């Protein structure tokens, strides 16, 4: 008989306890039915990447030829996503690059003053969810580097149809650069500039309950000074000259992506890209990524990528002094590049106040057939509120 009041009291206590989500946030009627918060931070992410590059290229004057291309890069990034009302999301993104080189550029040909170059950008993007199926994004940014100034603006529209089975996306980007030109001996020439206009069209399609595909085409038109002005070119006479590049470049890229769910809680991603431009460069890139979920909070990823390009039509390591176009830049040479890598990621859901805290760490090795090797270490930490 005395049990009934105890059971009733326990039931009342349970019912009186505020309902909580898995994250520990209290939910009341105001939280569910009340007006949305005018401004709320949704997530903060950071990523730190370290690149260690070794190799040689004929455009470098650091020893050689070919000169040394050794450098290290420290690349921290910060991203904050904030929601304004029900339909607008803002993204603030700050990437930094600190490059420590083995004096491969013209400034260091006469001085070591620029052996460490700091570069940073601030980018802001705002997305307006106009309807359930249609969203529009505008973005703008500013890039500051030792002797560079760069601005970019752009916009994109996405629209889903067929019950969200397909999504089309159109984007337009414009980049303007200004920088100080130097000749290969480090003498300052003048301020030069260039522009890049880019249009992309993409389609994402659900192909089955376990398969999704994506096609993309992008064209970029560049105009102006399309090199850094201080890359060296070995001449047939045994001396060095400067690069001579066209002032216009038209670039096309076609991309296909496929993701396939695997029954053992894994996923296979396949990527192919074909590139062609009017400098005579053709390239094929393919990448395969294998994901494996080991538990609800732990996953692994293996990556293999191969890239083959034939080089621009005027690449040379012994240019004729009378040539009207010439470059010895190893990035524009014929080569095959391979990337091998892996990553591990964790979702730290055991912290009850945070709905999602996650981290990942990856290592990749990039190897090129024309003497360039890079080790890439990257770690990320993010939280969603």
């Amino acid at each position, binding site marked *: 008989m005395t049990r009934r009041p105890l059971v009733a009291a326990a039931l009342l206590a349970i019912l009186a306890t505020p309902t909580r989500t898995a994250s520990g946030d209290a939910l009341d009627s105001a939280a569910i039915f009340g007006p949305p918060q005018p401004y709320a931070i949704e997530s903060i992410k950071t990523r730190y990447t370290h690149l260690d590059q070794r190799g040689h290229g004929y455009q470098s004057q650091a020893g050689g030829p070919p000169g040394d291309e050794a450098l290290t890069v420290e690349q921290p990034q910060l991203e904050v996503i904030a929601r304004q009302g029900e339909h607008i999301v803002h993204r603030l993104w700050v990437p930094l690059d600190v490059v420590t080189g083995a004096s491969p550029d013209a400034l260091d040909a006469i001085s070591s003053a620029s052996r460490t170059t700091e570069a940073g950008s601030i980018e802001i993007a705002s997305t307006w969810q106009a309807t359930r199926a249609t969203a529009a994004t505008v973005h703008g940014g500013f890039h500051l580097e030792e002797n560079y100034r760069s601005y*970019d603006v752009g916009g994109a529209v996405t629209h889903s*149809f067929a019950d969200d089975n397909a999504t089309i996306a159109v984007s337009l980007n414009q980049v*303007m650069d200004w920088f100080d030109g130097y000749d290969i001996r480090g003498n300052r020439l003048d301020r030069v500039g260039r522009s890049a206009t880019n249009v992309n069209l993409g389609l994402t399609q659900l192909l089955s309950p376990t398969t999704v595909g994506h096609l993309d085409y992008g064209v970029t038109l560049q105009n102006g000074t399309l090199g850094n002005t201080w890359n060296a070119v070995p001449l047939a006479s045994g001396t060095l000259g400067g690069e001579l590049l066209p002032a216009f470049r038209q670039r096309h890229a076609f991309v296909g992506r496929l993701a396939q769910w695997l029954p053992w809680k894994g996923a296979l991603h396949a990527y192919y890209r074909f590139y062609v431009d009017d400098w005579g460069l053709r390239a094929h890139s393919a990448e395969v990524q294998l994901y494996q979920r080991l538990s609800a909070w732990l996953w692994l990823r293996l990556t293999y990528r191969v890239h083959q390009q034939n080089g621009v039509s005027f690449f040379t390591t012994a240019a004729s002094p009378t040539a009207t176009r010439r470059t010895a830049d190893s990035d524009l040479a014929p080569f095959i590049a391979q990337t091998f890598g892996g990553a591990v990621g964790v979702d730290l859901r055991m912290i009850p106040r945070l709905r999602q805290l996650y981290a990942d760490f990856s290592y990749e090795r990039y190897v090129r057939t024309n003497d360039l090797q890079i080790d890439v270490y990257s770690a990320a930490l993010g939280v969603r509120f």
Partner: protein
Amino acid sequence: MRRIAVLLALAAAVGGCAIVPQNRRAHLADPMMSLQDESLEAYRKQKLYGVREGAAGGDGASAGGGCGCQ
């Protein structure tokens, strides 16, 4: 341009050839199935390859501009 037009027409046609109901998208909703890399990871890769390979651009991103020389 003709090839591009044919490609786009094919891409548009694919849009109508498969319908996956909402209640059969559990696997597609897993973050591992996202076709886009995580945003900061995407920048890391774009920077790595865009600066060192003379074949940047496309896939929603511009070629050239900013730091780097291509």
